[in-house]
């Protein structure tokens, strides 16, 4: 399924955002909200994962049905998982496109990487 990804704050993400190495941050943020119809059409059930992919990268996330979303739109709590899908272009104003990102969404058996795994072998 092709979808438009937007990322942003949620209450749970905000409450855990200064304690990011805690498993509660992982539970609050490593999520992909989908409309109820898309959740069903991808054959998902509670606790299953989706793989989001675009030209910037790919990330597996736990799927969550959200009645507030229209079809073909996914919402990701802001953070390092969502930012794998965000490009570096800022359109000359310094701010990357954190919303309105085109992604391909499929059901997956791939595990969701925890926060240390996301940064494993990076740099140092």
């Amino acid at each position, binding site marked *: 399924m092709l979808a438009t990804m937007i990322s*942003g*704050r949620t209450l749970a993400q905000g409450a855990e955002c200064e304690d990011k190495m805690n498993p509660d941050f992982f539970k609050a943020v490593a999520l992909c909200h989908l409309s109820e119809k898309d959740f069903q059409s991808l054959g998902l059930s509670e606790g299953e994962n989706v793989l989001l992919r675009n030209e910037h990268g790919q990330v597996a996330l736990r799927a969550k049905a959200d009645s507030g979303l229209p079809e073909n739109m996914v919402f990701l709590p802001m953070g390092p998982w969502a930012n794998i899908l965000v490009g570096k272009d800022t359109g000359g104003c310094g701010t*990357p496109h954190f919303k309105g990102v085109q992604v391909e969404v499929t059901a997956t058996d791939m595990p969701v990487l925890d926060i240390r795994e996301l940064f494993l072998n990076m740099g140092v």
Partner: protein
Amino acid sequence: MSEAKIIKDAICSFCGCLCDDINVEVDEGRVQRVRHACRLGSSKILGHGRIEHPMVRKDGRLVEASFQEAYDRSAQILLRANKPLLYGWASTSCEAAKKGILLAEEVGAVIDSTATVCHGPSVIGIEEKGLPGATLGQVKNRADTIVFWGCNPVEAHPRHSLRYSSNSVGRFTPQGREGRKIVVVDVRETRTARNADKFIRVNPGGDYEVISALRMLVKGKGDLLPQEVGGVLKADLAELADMLKAARFGALFFGLGITHSRGRYKNIDNALSLVAELNQHSKFVILPMRGHYNVGGIGQTLAWSSGYPMSVDLTRGKPYFNPGETSACDLLARRDVDAALIIAADAASNFPRSTVEALADIPVIQIDPYENPTTLLSDVVIPCAIAGVEVEGTAYRMDGLSLRLRKLVDSCLPSDEEILMGILGSVHRQRQMMANQGV
């Protein structure tokens, strides 16, 4: 046993609301209970796991070090760099920001704040058009029509509605929520939208068109519009335009839904024009919903020090500002900086992945109370006392009002300000040594 102390009317240092009615119970030097704060503020004030001691990277591993050792290593990194980046500043005091600007001038650095990945486009739009703003107190006391555009205060600023907007009860708004019309414009039906009188769903990236259509309707040129604009029916837009024109006092709050989407600063520019034009029919104000509690303060401090509110390049001996060139993400994307000091922010979590990879390839100094992904990439880690909880200081609310943060409990850790002065002292000493050695 010591007796618990109640600190009344403390200021919450989480989001741009800077709620100033928080009661904190302190016993045996620790915060035991927090009253009146939302879930976000309580979580911050109650505290959690901290970085306990400074660390420097040796043989690929972060190992414990003294504060002086960490200051010396930080100074060495900054002095060796051709173009260091000093980034963050949104969750610390203006006093710390002043020291950061001094350090940036001393070592010839670019200094940028988290606004650059947040309301940076708003800052640019406001520079172009000006901000017909108001204090949150004016909104509370007078506003009868409130629009939330691309923002979700129920989750991002949970007490905004009760203290300042939808549900607040003010001098000329005695009926509170009952006496107000609340409109939400968003691409999804958020929890804020569910409490609104009118919800308008726009297509992602359609905000600019919808704002333009509203401007045409406000100017009486609606007959030129197509039946649908940006996913919204013309009839809905016409109803909204009438509602806005009929306001006795209207307020438009906007969030990252329009700064992070297609159009970016032009969306803000257009929204500012809409509000300016609404003032020909009614009194209308517009305000950005600032996220981190003092992201406004670093903007103010930078502006009065250098003339520019963010992304200030001080490597040339005089301030230079050009977002898209001197902003943190662009500098990293171009690999145009060769060291970074990250303070009161977590760039590794909040920047696009490819720019984080660039950050991982350069020496990084982190000043923060908490371990986070930036710690994993850092060469020097310096723990600090928490501004607004363990250190007093100045912060700017989202409406530009400056407030004095109080110290609630003691800390054995130095403040951000003290750490920056420690690094600056080491910069001076090392520079003197280099001069003595004729380097």
